[in-house]
């Protein structure tokens, strides 16, 4: 026997539907099995640092690069393996990873990361007419 049962059960059902949102949302979107596939540049052996380092800490590196160029005027980066690279998002990064939509956006969209690189930098694949 429940008192005010209909009201309480209605509230309970609404809560249960809301709280199980993650369980049904992606399923409704038919995207439960979605895995991002960043397209790696062909013909390139390695990035400026190791793949593990880049995967976890590329944002740190880019932040250091920005500070080095904008605040200190340094334009050369010496990597841990001793190679020298020009510090440039458009020149160096996008030189290999030429398509933002197929590389950067894959993971960034997946985890809802919205970096502010592109507030200033131009997406060269768009200016070349290749990107979206």
């Amino acid at each position, binding site marked *: 026997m429940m008192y005010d049962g209909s009201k309480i059960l209605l509230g309970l059902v609404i809560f249960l539907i809301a709280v199980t949102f993650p369980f049904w949302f992606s399923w409704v979107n038919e995207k*439960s099995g979605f895995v991002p596939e960043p397209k790696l540049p062909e013909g390139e052996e390695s990035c400026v640092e190791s793949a593990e380092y880049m995967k976890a800490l590329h944002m*740190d590196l880019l932040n250091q690069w920005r500070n080095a160029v904008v605040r200190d005027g340094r334009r050369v980066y010496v990597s841990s393996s001793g190679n020298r690279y020009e510090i440039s998002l458009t020149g160096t990064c996008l030189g290999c990873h030429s398509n933002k939509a197929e590389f950067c956006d894959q993971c960034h969209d*997946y985890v809802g990361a919205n970096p502010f690189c592109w507030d200033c930098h131009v997406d060269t694949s768009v200016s070349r007419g290749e990107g979206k």
Partner: protein
Amino acid sequence: MNVLVSFIIVIFLVLLAIVGVQLGGLYILFGAVLPYVAIALFLGGLTYRVVSWARAPVPFRIPTTCGQQKSLPWIKSSRLDNPHDGVGVLGRMALEVLLFRSLFRNSRTELKEGSNKVVFGPDKWLWMGALLFHYSFLVIFVRHMRFFSEHVPSLTLLLQGLDGFFQVGVPVVYMTSFMFLVAVTYLFARRIISPMVRYISLPADYFPLFLLLGIGTTGVLLRHIFKTDVVGVKELGMGLLSFSPVASPDLHYLFYVHLFLVTVLIAYFPFSKLVHMAGVFLSPTRNLANNNRERRHVNPWDYPVKVHTYQEYEEEFRDKMIKVGIPVEKE
């Protein structure tokens, strides 16, 4: 002592996750089995609690009243503090649930140093701390949906944008992360500093605070210091949700500590004071309209009680009462 017990339990939980993952390699246990158990306990436990509350009869209207009751049309009644109908109750509940009005009314009683005067004053600190804690927790919860839904909901993206408005650091610092830690620290310090509050604080009060502090700290560390592979985290989350869990040994062990503490929180939720999330809606002292004088409320378990009225009593003992000189109604 109560503080220490709760602290040791939380430290033990942290170590348990580290040992389990680092030495035991129990990725599936900590990454899938325990979260599933916790979610089942949470949903089942909460439903059980709510249904058991619903089964408790509330035959009469017992709201706590803080204003003039509705009576004659020319007496102004306080509709929110002493609601007489559903609309008033809805307003009262909304203020309680969304703005913690009863905490806002909190007052403090002090004996002034030097003089023997008792002083009453407002005390808004708990209200502010609670508001800060609950709302930052809500924002953090909604923000975390980026790990549990594909595509990421627009509300999550909107809140992320607002929360990281100042764009400090990469990844950007979210204001609510630190507001949350400050609020939980305040709620803890409040129990320690005031001797009165400390006296009535139990392990069940400290434990959730330490747990939340642990969750917040590991969360901030994972975002800003140890920087886990968030794509791997989302793959784990999505694997859980689509009932095809994956073992992710590459993730930082602190992530598993974070996940395990959240698992414990979820499982602990329905069986502790935290269930006030549901209970606040079912408080009869707040969700009932004060219409006791307008409407007749019949006790649902009214039983035909055998009564012995005075008339019957006098009928039975009249001679004896007259004999000893006790006045009777009917000679």
